[in-house]
C-alpha cells in the first residue's frame, strides 16, 4: 500500500461520514494522508481487514474478538492500538419495572428478557453471559426476545436497546438489557419514567471499541496515526467537534483486558462458529 493510512469503519449511522471526513481533514493538516473505507457490517470489515483492504479497523468489541480469534487461528496476530476513554469500564444492566415481582436474577425463570440486536455485546451477549454464570440458560430457563435493529452493526445503533426498553414499559417483556449510560439517557429522555424501573442486575465491567491492526501493518504509518490520535486535546477547537461527534474526551491505549466477558459469551454460546466458517478457519 502507499503511504496513505487507510481505515475501515462500519457505517452504523449517517453521521459516520462527517466524522471520518473530519478526521481526514485534520490528519491531512498534520501531514498524514488518511482515507477510509466504510462497510455495512462488521463481519465484512473483519474479512476485508484480513484481505488487506485497509490498515486499521475501528472495531466493535465483537469485531475485535472476531479479528483476534481469526488471527490466532491463522498464526497471525491482532493488536488493539487505541480506544476512547468512554470505551473503558462499561457495565450493562438488566432492568425491570419498579413494580415487578422479580427480585433477583433467579426470578427470571420462566420469564421473557428483552435484548438488543443478536450481535450486540452490550445488550445481548454480555448480559446473557452474566445470567449464564448465575445458572440461567437462555431459551431453557427464560425466553429471549431480540430487538434486532440493524444486525451486523453489533448494537452500535442504540435502536435495539431503546426498543427493548420501550417493550419493558409496555409490559411486553419482563426485563430489558441496556448499557448503564443508556439507562441514564432513556431516563432523562422520559422513555423510562423516573422511579418506574429498577435495576435487577449489573454485569461486571467490560470495554467497548478499539482501533485494531494486524501483523504486517506498516509500523511507521501506524505509529504516526497513534501519535496523532494521542495528541488530540479536548481544549483544541479544531479537534473538539470531532471528539464530540465520536463521544470521547481523550484517546487511551488500546488495552485488551476488558473483553473477557464477551469472549466467554462467544465461547459459551458458540457464537463465532459461523463466522469462522465464513473466514475458513473453523
Amino acid at each position, binding site marked *: 500500500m502507499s503511504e496513505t493510512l487507510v481505515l475501515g469503519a462500519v457505517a452504523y449511522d449517517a453521521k459516520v461520514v462527517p466524522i471520518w471526513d473530519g478526521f481526514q481533514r485534520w490528519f491531512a493538516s498534520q501531514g498524514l494522508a488518511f482515507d477510509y473505507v466504510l462497510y455495512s457490517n462488521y463481519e465484512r470489515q473483519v474479512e476485508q481487514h484480513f484481505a488487506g483492504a485497509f490498515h486499521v479497523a475501528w472495531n466493535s468489541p465483537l469485531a475485535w474478538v472476531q479479528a483476534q480469534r481469526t488471527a490466532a487461528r491463522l498464526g497471525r496476530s491482532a493488536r488493539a492500538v487505541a480506544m476512547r*476513554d*468512554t470505551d*473503558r*469500564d*462499561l*457495565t450493562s*444492566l438488566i432492568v425491570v419495572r419498579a413494580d415487578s415481582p422479580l427480585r433477583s436474577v433467579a426470578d427470571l425463570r420462566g420469564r421473557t428478557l428483552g435484548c438488543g440486536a443478536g450481535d450486540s455485546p452490550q445488550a445481548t451477549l454480555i448480559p446473557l453471559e452474566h445470567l449464564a454464570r448465575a445458572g440461567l440458560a437462555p431459551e431453557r430457563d427464560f425466553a429471549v426476545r431480540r430487538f434486532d435493529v440493524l444486525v451486523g452493526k453489533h448494537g452500535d445503533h442504540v435502536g435495539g436497546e431503546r426498543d427493548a426498553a420501550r417493550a419493558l414499559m409496555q409490559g411486553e417483556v419482563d426485563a430489558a438489557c441496556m*448499557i*448503564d*449510560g443508556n*439507562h*441514564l439517557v432513556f*431516563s*432523562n429522555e422520559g422513555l423510562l419514567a*423516573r*422511579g418506574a424501573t*429498577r*435495576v435487577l442486575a*449489573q454485569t461486571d465491567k467490560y470495554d467497548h471499541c478499539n482501533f485494531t491492526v494486524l501483523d504486517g501493518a506498516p509500523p511507521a504509518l501506524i505509529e504516526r496515526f497513534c501519535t496523532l490520535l494521542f495528541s488530540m*486535546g*479536548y*481544549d483544541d*477547537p*479544531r479537534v*473538539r*467537534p470531532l471528539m464530540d461527534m465520536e*463521544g*470521547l*474526551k*481523550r484517546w487511551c491505549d488500546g488495552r485488551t483486558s476488558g473483553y473477557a466477558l464477551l469472549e466467554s459469551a462467544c465461547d459459551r454460546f458458540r457464537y463465532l462458529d459461523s463466522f469462522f466458517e465464513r473466514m475458513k478457519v473453523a
Partner: protein
Amino acid sequence: MGAARASNVLELGELGFDSGAHVLVKRALARLAPGEQLEVRGSAAELGIHAAAWARAEGHDAEFAPAGAAYVLRLAPGAAHGARWRGVERAGAGAGPEHVVERAPQGWGLAARGAAVEAGAPEFDFAHTNKLELWADDLGALYRQALASQWDPATAVPWNAPHTHGDELEDALVSVLTYLIENETAALIVPARFAASVHPHFREVQQLLAIQAADEARHIEVFTRRATLRRSQLGLSTAGGQASLKTLIDEPDFALASLLLSVLGEGSFVNLLWFLHEHAPDECTRAIMKLTAQDEARHVAFGVAHLARQSREDTSLAPRLAAAIERRHDALRGTAGLNAEVFDALIVLAAGAFEPASIAAGHQAVVELLRQMHAGRRNRLRLVGLQPEQAEALSALHTRNFM
C-alpha cells in the same frame, strides 16, 4: 484517589442523575481548586450506576462505594474539564450599544453581543460587518419608537366608514393604491435582504430593518384591503415603474440602498402619503394614509441618521452617494417613470370632482406635491453631507416614479 476536603463534600440526598443531579455536581466541580476532588453522597436508587456513566462520558475519574444505605462517589475532574471554555472570546465587552466594535469578526457569528464565544465556532459570511457602514446614533431610541408605534390594521382603520364618492374617484384611488402596493413590496424586500446580511453584532440595525420590513408588510395588507373594498381588480403595473424599483432591489451597497430607498424614495413617499391623507375620498383611506406616512417617516429618519453619521466620518461617502443618484438616473433615462394613470389619478383625487375648476385645483395640488418632494429630498441630501447646489441638482435627478 484520596479523601476530599470537608468543604468539597456534596450532599445530594435523594436527588439522582435522572433528576438533574449533574447540575449540582457540575457546580461543585467548578468550585474545586486545581488538584482537589469532590465527594458526592446520596441515596437515590441508581446513583452509583448513573454517576459512573455520567463521569465516564464527561471524562472524570470516579470511584464509587456503597456506604450503608447511601453511596459515596469520589470525583476528580478530568483533563477535559473546562477545556471547552479555554480560549473563549467575548463578542464585544458588553451587551449595550456602547460596546459595538468597529468591525465584527465573522467567527462571532450569531452570538449575542457580549457573549463568550467558543473557539472553533464556524465562520459566517455576513456581507456587512463595519460599524461605519451601518451604525446610527440613537438606534435604540428609533427602535423603541418603532415598537411603540405599531398598529393593528383590524382596529386602527375604520374599514366600515361610509363612502360617498363616485365610481370614477374610486377608480383613481385604486390606481394609486395599486402603485403603492408595488412600491411597498420593493420597500419590504430591501430591508429584509439587508437584515439577513448585516452582522448580528449590530443587532439594533437588524431590529430596525426587521421592523421596517414588518411595517411594509402591513402597508401592503391595508393598501390591498382598501383597494378591494369596492373593486375586484387592481390597476396597472408599468414596465417603467418596475424598472425603477428593480434598481433599488439590485443595489448591494447598504449605504447606497439606504440613500435611494429611504432618504430619497420613502422620503418622497411621506409627502405623497400626506397628500393622499389630505385628499382621501373617505375616512378609511384617510386613516390608512396617516398611519403609513408615520411609519415611513421613521424609515426615513433611520436612513438619514446613519448616512449622516457615516458621512461625517468618511469624506468619500458624499461623492459615492452623488454618483449613485446619477447612475440610477442614467439607468432609468429610457423609462417612462411614473405612469400617466397614477399621475392623473392624483389630480383627480385632489380635484374631488370633474369640473374644470376642480381639475385645475387638483393639478395645482399635484404640482405643489412635486415641489414639496423636491424640497424634502434637497434638505435630506444636505443632511447626509452633500453641498447645497449639489443637493439641488441631484434631487432633480431622482426617479420620476417617486420611490
